[in-house]
């Protein structure tokens, strides 16, 4: 008899055992929340730069007493350090000219005027220029905000985002990180990024097909195109106008005098070469790819480029 009771007890315990963690969770209620959804969230290409500068502006507005750190002898001119409450409380270095002697900066750095970077610098936090910025020497930064125009004449590497209120020109190699936002982006040197938004992004000064007088024989395609495989559009012999969008599951290779007035979307990679124009001036259109986007030679887009991997532009 005791054996039977023992067996029944053992059986019950074993039967009950798999449910023990569930019952503990049921009563402890360690995670009863639904997954968070931000009801206010919307897609904004300038989100990072705008949010950052808003936080900085708010912190400066709320600043009541300035805390100035002791000057360090390495600086040619003394920078002002303020302790600001950004996402957390931290020191921010303010300078009013470009004469920053230190090559590595651990704090967020704000230049209050036009700045030319003549020396090699590594900014481990955000770099802010409330004026125009010219990079004449190698520079590394976590993120870059420029109130005016920004000219890159030496190799620059940004890890996260670049936000330029004016025109961004790259004349040297530039790795612009994850997101780039500017009023206009002129790519004149080898440049990489993941996303870029501007009214106009181009790689050449020469007039492309959307600005030319096309009186000759032109291939006109109207409508939106959905392609299961890959697509190649060549406009080397005759210009091609596509009055619509292109959506394809495979790779898209577009080269020559091709003007796509809509969007280009690919689940693979996109290559845009030698004279391709995307979009219409004054309107926002997009080039989006899950794979790489490769831009070679003259190219122009009015709007947005997005790659899940990398955009590489070589003018």
């Amino acid at each position, binding site marked *: 008899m005791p054996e039977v009771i023992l067996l029944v007890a053992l059986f019950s315990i074993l039967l009950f055992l798999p449910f023990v963690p569930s019952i503990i969770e049921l009563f402890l209620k360690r995670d009863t*929340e639904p997954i968070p959804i931000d009801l206010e969230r919307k897609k904004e290409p300038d989100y990072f730069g705008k949010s950052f500068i808003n936080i900085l502006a708010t912190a400066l507005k709320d600043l009541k007493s300035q805390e100035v750190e002791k000057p360090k002898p390495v600086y040619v001119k003394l920078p002002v350090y303020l302790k600001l409450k950004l996402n957390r409380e931290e020191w921010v270095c303010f300078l009013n000219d470009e004469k920053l002697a230190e090559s590595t900066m651990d704090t967020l750095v704000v230049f209050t005027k036009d700045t030319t970077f003549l020396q090699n610098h590594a900014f481990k936090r955000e770099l802010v220029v409330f004026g125009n910025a010219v990079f004449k020497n190698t520079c590394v930064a976590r993120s870059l905000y420029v109130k005016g125009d920004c000219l890159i004449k030496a190799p620059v590497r940004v890890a996260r985002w670049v936000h330029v209120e004016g025109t961004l020109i790259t004349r040297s190699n530039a790795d612009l990180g994850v997101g780039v936002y500017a009023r206009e982006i002129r790519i004149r040197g080898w440049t990489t990024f993941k996303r870029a938004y501007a009214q106009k992004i181009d790689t050449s000064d020469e007039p492309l097909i959307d600005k030319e007088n096309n009186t000759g024989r032109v291939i006109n395609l109207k409508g939106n195109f959905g392609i299961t495989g890959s697509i190649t559009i060549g406009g080397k012999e005759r210009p091609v106008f596509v009055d619509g969008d292109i959506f394809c599951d495979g790779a898209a290779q577009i080269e020559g005098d091709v003007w796509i007035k809509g969007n280009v979307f690919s689940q693979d990679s996109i290559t845009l070469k030698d004279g391709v124009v995307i979009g219409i001036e004054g309107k926002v259109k997009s080039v989006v790819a*899950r794979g790489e986007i490769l831009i070679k030679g003259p190219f122009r887009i009015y709007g947005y480029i997005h790659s899940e991997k990398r955009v590489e532009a070589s003018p």
Partner: protein
Amino acid sequence: MGILIFLLKAYMVFLMLLLFLYIVRHYFFTLNRAFGKQRLYYQDVLDEDLPTVSVLVPMHNEEKVAKHILDLLVASDYPKEKLEIIPINDHSTDRTKEILEEYAQKYPFIRPLHRYGDLPRGKQNALNDALKIAKGEVIIVYDADYLPPKAQIRTLAIAFKDPRVGAVMGRVVPINAGKNLLTRLLDIERSGGYQVDQQARYNLNLITQYGGTVGGFRKSVVMELGGFDPRILTEDTELTYKLYLNGYKVAYANIAECYEEAPEDWNARARQLRRWSRGHNRVMFKYFLPTILSKKLSFWQKVDGLLLLAIYMQPFLIFLGLLDSLLLFFLGEMEIASSYLFLLFIFAHNSFGNFAPFFEIGTALVLDGAKQKVFLLPLMFFEFIFNIIYTSLGFVDAVIDLITKRTILWQKTERFRNA
């Protein structure tokens, strides 16, 4: 007697093979979602030329929730000149009509449709009537208890730039997840269904399901295909098959997450499940053969399409299997096949097969960053038993509907939110 025993055994073998297919599907989807290439949705396409959109919100006695959804739709960032909102008051007897009129007076883009009198009740009928007055190229549908985020209409509508897309589906998240055991289980079940199942289908170019809410469709295509069948309660599943059989696809937007209110009591859940099963099985009867014979579907789309069609019949088949095994046991004919290989199959099934759905839901919870919820998984065993009962009843309802051609009455899911 010999023939009966043969048939009983044959059914067991058929059932095992069918369940094996579902197990393979579960694992395949889960592994794809966890490690495979993820297909990109269209949310990153920024385009100023957006389509005109009509948002339809079917409502029957929704005074508890009507204001919430209308306030959120009014706050949407979609250009108002391209947007109209049509709340469909379907025979409401509470304050729904007054609430809709209040909003219509305040916002010119809200144009309520009131359905009373002889007009037949039901979501599918309400949608058919609303489609006649909707002006949008794209129709977005929300159930009345949903809470759409500001940018969601844009996220959903942008998919229709791709001419192959006939419908789009977002992700449903229960807002009352922590209310009680039922809502907690429904919450994790939804995670598995959307985060893994739907996304994997979209990745693999299979049959992504349009779910009838937090989603939309191309108006011209649906009108061309004859609108919604008034005899079918699950107009969403029907539309999914109609679209795929006509060469369109359904896009899945995992990023388009929207809160809903999950049933908080088991009776309400039972009625909801039974209605879904009844409607889904009617779709199965109607589209099983066309899916097999379709020239627009690939082989794997057909396989997935058929498995999806039979999903609400599966519990009934398992129930029959249980009866079958009991019969075989009492007839002393339990030995169906005997070999070491078969024994290995049984062991493998017991070790891995039974855990396939749990593996899928567990993976979804990890992807969602809700690891504590994984501990609730064993309790889903009881929900599965509950599901078997009510989906089987829904299957029986569908068979009776098919035979008797009786009139189908829509049963609304009860709301639990405080107004």
